[in-house]
């Protein structure tokens, strides 16, 4: 439902985030790393400055590269990233993908940078992947309007400033030569 309203069906803005991501692997897992640079709208930033928490849903889908669209994916995840201004400390609290507790940042830009930073996020175990198959990892970020206060939600269904989402970033593993 959240995706339906916040990003799936009605979302229009495709440049919500620059997804500078890469796939890597360690001994056991397929890893995702890189930065998500978010471009919040003016209304969203104003809401952030007024203490409203902004949540970003990042969806990751892993499937064999030659599978059809409707075929079942190998794995899919949704990560919620959240940023909020803390008035008393005059800092921004960030709860990112790889952080289990919030971190405080003195500036908004530092907080936004930290929000999208992904350090070696384990996606799937390498043992579950077929070595002869190429896999496609699709990543997309959407502003989760369902996390906004209820009175704001009708507005998010109608306003472009609140319907924020990125395009799909598609990575392949193993990478094409």
């Amino acid at each position, binding site marked *: 439902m959240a995706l339906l309203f916040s990003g799936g069906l009605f979302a229009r803005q495709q440049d919500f985030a620059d997804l500078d991501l890469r796939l890597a692997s360690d001994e056991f897992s397929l890893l995702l790393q890189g930065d998500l640079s978010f471009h919040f709208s003016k209304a969203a930033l104003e809401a952030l400055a007024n203490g409203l928490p902004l949540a970003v849903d990042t969806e990751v889908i892993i499937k064999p590269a030659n599978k059809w669209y409707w075929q079942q994916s190998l794995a899919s995840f949704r990560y919620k990233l959240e940023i909020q201004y803390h008035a008393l400390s005059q800092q921004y609290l960030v709860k990112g993908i790889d952080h289990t507790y919030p971190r405080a940042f003195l500036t908004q830009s530092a907080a936004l940078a930290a929000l999208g930073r992904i350090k070696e996020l384990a996606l799937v175990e390498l043992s579950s992947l077929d070595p002869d198959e190429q896999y496609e990892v699709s990543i997309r970020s959407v502003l989760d309007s369902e996390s906004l206060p*209820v009175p*704001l939600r009708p507005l998010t269904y109608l306003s472009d400033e609140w319907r924020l989402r990125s395009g799909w970033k598609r990575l392949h593993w193993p990478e094409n030569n």
Partner: protein
Amino acid sequence: MSVLPRLFRWQHWGVAPVLLLFAGLLFSLYMLSSATENSAVIGPYYSWLLLGNALGLLVLTGMLGYQLYRLTIEYRQRRAGIRLTLRMVTMFVILAVVPVSLVYILSVQFLQRGIDSWFDVRIETALGDALDLSRDSMTGLIREKAKSTLKLAESVVDTPTSIATLNLVDMRLSSGADEIALLDTTGHVYAFSTTDPESLLPNAPSELIYSQLRQGYPYLDLEPVKDEGFIIRVVIEIPDTINLAVRGRRLIQALYPVADRLNSLSQSVQSAFAAYKELSYIRDELKNSFILTLSLALVLNILAAIIVAVISARRLVEPVRVLVDGTRAVATGNYEKRLPVTSHDELGKLVGSFNDMTQRVAEASQQARLSREAAEEEHAYVQTILSRLSSGVITLNSDGLVVTMNPMASRILLNSEVDLTNKSLDEIVDQFPGLHEFYNCIHRHLNADETQWQEQLVFLNHKGRQVLMVNGGLLSPEQGREGEHVVMFDDVTDFVQAQRDAAWGEMARRLAHEIKNPLTPIQLSAERVRHKCLQDVEGKAAEVLDKATRTIIDQVEAMKDMVNAFTQYARSPELKIESLSLNRMIEEILEMYKGEQQRAATELRLDSENTYISADAGRIRQLLHNLIRNALDALNGVEDPHLLVETRFDPLNNTLVLTIEDNGPGFDESIINNVFEPYVTTKQQGTGLGLAIVKKIVEEHHGAITVTNLVKGGAKVMINFSCMDVVSHASSNGGLG
């Protein structure tokens, strides 16, 4: 219709589905409103609730559209009760919509004012001040902790890192910090001591803090820990005089807990300020959200009210509609219509009464129908009798219009079947001038207000002289035809003529028998007397005897001629009907009178076509002789005598009209009406049988003869013969060879 489709016709379920849907939507709206107030519990379902409400309203709108569509169709079809239904719907809708709209408007105003009242500058200022106060309070604490941390840093100045790390636990315990870490400006951690036994890594400062430290500024600040209050982070560069770090310079970081009381109060201030700030920011959206909920409730109410109004109005009007249908059925003559009694209220009783009424009307109607059928049978019976009657029957209303007329009436009067019903006597006489005498007769008796009258009417028409026995009478009110007059008449022309012909025939036969027999002995005796005695007497006596016997002989001869003429009139020889050309016959006869014609100018106008008739040539020849003889006799002593013989085909009646016209003195007016009767003549030497024989010959050939005096002087005899058609003429010619 099967049961299943009926079940799916929701209108049969009445208002129950609408009310169920209405209740569901009302609950949904309540939840929607609660979601606005209590975001944590119902908030996640807000979108579903909104979608559900929208779909519900859509369904209600569809229901309403269907109801309005049905109303429109029924209005166009002028269905019974539709106007009453519309009036009731309008009334119900007004009753429902006006108060709800009023409440809505007032609610919106109260809502806006109520939400506005939440926000006050003083509250905002107070919250801001409280926040500043908390911040100041925290700042003092931070400074204190900064001094403690500075002392810790000074205690390890120029102390090798390996030795300093041994003192970290003591330093943490002595300073009251939760965590103390020794690290450098590149982020390298040498050692740390923490109260959290599960922590494997220190709570590292952010890049920004490192950056600040690299620029030579210490970092000391309050950091929120979500849902757990605050910690104070102090990071200070250790003022080493010698470089003891791996890279960069050494740092000491201390994380101090905040006292529970201060933590709780600060957290409370922070929460209140954040909540107020958030509410203040979404103030307009909050209003809009409530107004949206209210608006949905308003629309829901109005839609449900209209639908319920339509369905209720239909149910209320249904018995009336059924009654109207029944009334219409009765109006169109369907008295068998029975209405279903679906209720036991006043309307149910009304329907029951209507059924009783229609049953009685049906019975009365049945009686009336039987009576009407009997009357129709009677009428048909009378009509049949009238059509078989040999008498003509005409009924006239008080305005002189012909109400009924049997076929024989027009056959007697017009010699053809012409429908003259619904025509006035004036119109009839204008159309058929020959009926003028008949009209005068009836008109005279009608004006005399006679209840019963009888008259023998003699008049001339196309058939010639016609004698009618006319009876009339006023119909009595008891006969149901008040003011109407009935006229019955019989054509007694043939009867009267036959009586006269028989009388004259009998007289002629007796005359011939009684007179002719003694005439021969008288003549013979007179001749013998003359022969025997004339030579025996002389002188005066001989002269007297001669004159007397001659007179006797001549008069006896004349009487013989007269008796022969009567004999000829009386006898009725068998006709030898054949096809003959009337024109040729006329030319032959006129040739015989050629000498006499030289005294009179004779004009022949003979029709070139259709001059053949079926007739006895001898009788027609006698007819022409008599007429031409009469005409020539009439022209004796006339200056500039003129004789016209004309034949003319009348296509209308398919007759050949023979006209013989002279410019003599004409018929004496005293005898013109009886000119065809025997022994009617003004000629001194005539037998008075010429025209009687002519008429007899005409009648033997089923013709008609009329005589008239011309205005310019002279007489005109006109005879109508039935003309032979082409086929019969051809066959007749063939037969004659």
